[in-house]
Each structure stands twice: as C-alpha cells, then as structure tokens.
C-alpha cells in the first residue's frame, strides 16, 4: 500500500513504517521561534533539566513580529532573545531581516525536513516538501533541547488542482476558495497535499502562499511534492545541493480527494471575521476601504511586489486611502528596489515598511481605527487581529489589494489589468 508525502517523510525520519493514525517520535531538522513566542519558549527551555541545544546551527530565533520594537517591553524581550542567541550560538535573524517563514524558505528549509516552529504559519515550508508544522512554546522548547518531537501521522486530504489559472487569479484565490469550501476546521489534524497540473505548474512563491494558509483550514501541514520547480527555487537560493525529490506514491491512501478547477476560479475575498467567510471579489458590492496592506508571510514576496508595482505604476492611490506595503525579507526588499517596484509603489502614494510582520497582528505599523476597513493580503481576519476589535479586515490577493488601492473600494483586479 502506497504512502502520502506525510507518511513517507515521517517513515524515513522515525525509522518505522509510519501510517496515518500512528504516533511517532522523530528527530527535528529545524526548530525556530519568533519574538512573540520566543521569550516563553526560552523560559520553558530554561526550566528544563537539560539546558543545551541539541543543534545550535539548526535552531533559529527571529525578531520579526514587532520589529523594530514599538515599545519598551518588547524591546526588553528582544534583548532577552539576543542574549539567548549569544549564550547558545544559535542562529539569530534580527529586526529588519524579515518574516521568519520567508527566511526559512529562502535559507533553511529543505525537502523532507521535519520543521517545528513556535508560530502557526510554520506550515509555509510545506511548499518545499518539508513536514513543517506550528507548535506551542513547550513543544518547541523540548524540540530545541532534545532535538526531537512526537507527531501523530496525519490523514491526508488530497487537493487536485486541474487546468490553469486565468488572468488575475492565482494561489491566494485558490486557497481562499478552498478554505471557504471546507471551512476553518475542514482539515483539523489533517495534512493537505496539493496535486494536479495547476499545483505542479505553480512556482514556489505561489506554493508558499497556499501552504501558508493550510493552517486556516486547521491543517497540520500543507504539502507540495518536491520536484523540478523546487529544485529551481533552491538553486536560485544557492542551495541546489539540498534538493531531493519527494512525491506521494501513485497508490497512496487519501482520506478524501477534492478537485478544484483552476480555470473556474475567480478573485476571492475573505470577509470579517473569519477566513472561511469567503465570496468572489466581484460579488461584494460597494465596500469602501481605509487601508490596504500588501505583505506578510502570505503575500510579501518579490513577485507580489512586482504585481503590485505593475498595477500601481503611473497611477495614484485613491485620495484618503493608506496603502502599506511590506516586503517579507531584506532580500526581497533589495531585489524590489533594484527592479524598480519600490519606486513605482512610492510614486503611486504607497508607504513602504521595513521587512517583518508589520501590522498583521496588531502590534504596530497599521493598527486600525474604530470602524475602519482594511483590505489585507495577510492570512487572518479575526476580530481584533489588527489591534482593534472595532476594525474590519478583508483578505485577498495582491492583485485585488493593489487594484482596490486605486479605486478605494474592494475591486476585482481584472478591471485594472
């Protein structure tokens, strides 16, 4: 009987014939925390009997959620994190480096790895064929110290994406459509595995968007096979040697299969206050926006900057609208400057923020006022998410966000293309 990608990775890592439902103990290839979960994790780690890292060179600390720090308390948390990095010799990515998940993709994640991060969007690295999942501080502290974790081998829901995306429609629309269909708990405890011609054709930057949001359907991992597309991406990052192919067996057992026809998809929007509260952008009627936010671990990549710039070039953000753009890493930022994207966005009236999580989780850099509407390319629109329970957050693709910044209302991007 064949195996899914999850079963294959967990079999190799646990040294057993891992099948859905089994509980396995696995070595961890990469473990990381960020600045809002890191301090608790470090304290948990320090309350353990064994206070040495299993693998300092594969333990990473990221200062990204509040960077640079907006207040004294978080600044002190950052000092605590930096001191821990100095004490242990682990990797530190300080303020301005970018969002942890983007840096993990660029520099650290390898196909077939088991990656545990104290952040729910750790699933992002599933785009590179890594079994990457978010955990809390206790689990991550134990993974840091013992170099291993326990996992229940998940059942897999296969998502077959057929055909080709039409113009103005892409990965974000696919994943919002999927979450709308199966619900915010439609894949709880399960793995999602993306197959089919449109998934296979998707470049890594789009795969990262899809995997990133797997957790918004409750999934433990969101996996793509590791293939020529993955190899090309790793080569671009100077990591070609780390490529290994991984794919599910033809006779792998899936809990169920869902088929999505890429050609039929339209630009999608998630409405307040739930990610599964979706509709097509064209069906919404007149929704005025006050703030448009392009960035985050979901849509802050070079291609997102390029897409935003191409829609905004030689145009003006509608008067009274704040357009906030945040490249997801310093590498993306530098490349976006070189390519002219940043200039096009600034000339259109956009605000550029330093690489990091920016306003996504309501700590700084774009907190909403009472009754304000934000159209965001992030992954969550929960009540209070952007720092104010009286704010309203809509989620959409970069194309939809950029097009909406020009009109001041939620706009089907095909109108602007």
């Amino acid at each position, binding site marked *: 009987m064949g195996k899914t990608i999850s079963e294959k990775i967990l079999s190799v890592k646990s040294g057993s014939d891992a099948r859905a439902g089994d509980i396995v103990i696995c070595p961890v290839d990469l473990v990381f925390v960020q600045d809002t979960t890191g301090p608790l994790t470090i304290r948990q780690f320090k309350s353990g009997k064994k206070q040495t890292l299993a693998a300092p060179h594969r333990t990473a600390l990221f200062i990204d959620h509040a960077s640079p720090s907006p207040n004294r308390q978080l600044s002190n948390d950052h000092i605590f994190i930096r001191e821990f990095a100095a004490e242990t010799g682990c990797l530190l990515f300080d303020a301005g480096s970018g969002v942890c998940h983007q840096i993990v993709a660029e520099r650290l994640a390898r196909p077939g790895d088991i990656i545990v991060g104290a952040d729910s969007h750790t699933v992002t690295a599933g785009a590179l064929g890594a079994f990457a999942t978010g*955990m809390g501080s206790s689990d991550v502290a134990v993974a840091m110290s013992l170099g291993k974790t326990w996992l229940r081998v998940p059942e897999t829901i296969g998502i077959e994406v057929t055909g080709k995306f039409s113009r103005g429609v892409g990965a974000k629309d696919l994943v919002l459509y999927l979450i709308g269909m199966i619900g915010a708990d439609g894949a709880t405890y399960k793995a999602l595995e993306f197959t089919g011609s449109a998934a296979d054709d998707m470049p890594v930057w789009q795969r990262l968007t899809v995997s990133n949001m797997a957790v918004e359907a409750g999934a433990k991992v969101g996996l793509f096979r590791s293939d020529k597309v993955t190899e090309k991406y790793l080569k671009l990052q100077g990591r070609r040697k780390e490529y290994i192919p991984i794919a599910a067996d033809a006779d792998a057992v899936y809990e169920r299969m869902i088929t999505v026809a890429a050609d039929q998809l339209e630009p999608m929007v998630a409405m307040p206050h739930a990610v599964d509260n979706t509709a097509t952008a064209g069906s919404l009627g007149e929704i005025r926006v006050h703030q448009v936010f392009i960035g985050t671990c979901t849509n802050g990549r070079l291609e997102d900057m390029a897409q935003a710039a191409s829609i905004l070039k030689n145009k003006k953000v509608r008067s009274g609208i704040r357009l906030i753009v945040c490249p997801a890493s310093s590498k993306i930022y530098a490349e976006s400057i070189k390519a002219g994207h940043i200039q096009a966005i600034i000339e259109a009236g956009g605000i550029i923020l330093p690489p990091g999580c920016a306003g996504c989780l309501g700590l700084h850099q774009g907190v909403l006022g009472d009754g304000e509407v934000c159209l965001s390319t992030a992954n969550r629109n929960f009540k209070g998410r952007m720092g104010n329970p009286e704010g309203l957050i809509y989620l959409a693709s970069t194309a939809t966000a950029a097009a909406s910044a020009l009109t001041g209302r939620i706009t089907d991007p095909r109108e602007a293309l």
Partner: protein
Amino acid sequence: MAQPIHKGRAFKFGDGISTDLIIAGKYAHLRSNLPELAKHAMEDANPDFVKLVKTGDFIVAGSNFGLGSSREHAPLVIKMAGVSAILAKSFARIFFRNAINQGLPALICQTDKIAEGDILEISLDEGLIRNITRNESYSFTRIPPAMLNILNEGGLIPYINRHGDLKL
C-alpha cells in the same frame, strides 16, 4: 495517577473562538509579564470574563476552539484565570496540544445542553461530566493515552523533567 474532580460554573462561548479573542496579539508586550497578560484573558469575547470567573470554573464552547496562532499564552492565561478545564465540541490542533502541555484539560464533548452558569462536576478518570444544575451527565472523548501521560504530569515540561525523554 488519579486526577482530581473539578467543580465549577460554566462560562459559555460560541463557535470559532480564536486565539486573538482568547488573548489578543496587541498584548504581546505583556507576554513577559504573565500576571498582567492574564488580566486580558477572553477579553474580546467576554470583557467581564476575568472579573467573573472563579477558581475551578469551566469554559464551555462550540466548535474549533482556539483556532489561529500557536501562542501557548492562550491556554496559559485561561489556566491563570482559574479555569480548571475547557469543554468544546472540537479544538484547533495547536491549541489542543498547548492546553495539554500546560496541564489544562481540553475535553471534546457535546456542549449544547450546557447553559451559562450551570454547575458542572468533571471526573477525568471516569470520563464523565455531571451537570448538577440540570441533573444530567455527558461523556467526553477520551484524551489519547500519549497526551494523557503528559496531562497527568501537569504538562510537557514537568513530564520531560521527570522522565528525561519523550516516551509515548
């Protein structure tokens, strides 16, 4: 190890209570000051929760409780507020694991029959919830043995400190 019997009142919540409703991201600056952080538990779902809850009480919710962030502060502040167990129709994966890792029972059961303020008594060993107000009993899905071992030690860190390793 025998688990104590918990007794307290039910505080009801609906479906899809996110970690942002449990403890908002905007309070991240208080995460190194847990007693201050805990004052904001459940704030955006029920602003009076911390004022009203007493030691031993229960959170009783609908489906997908704890969806969203991996912040272990979510079960931690609920526990610090005095809650002795969370009952829900279902839990988000990371939250479920975090609650057990914090030694806080997260029990999957039908919660529709329980009303705000009902007095409940929960025996983890018997797998039984008694609704004293309504003179009813309900069963809950047993916690998987691997996780029960962790819960019985009071959480993952105490478990590892006692056993020195993961032995499931």
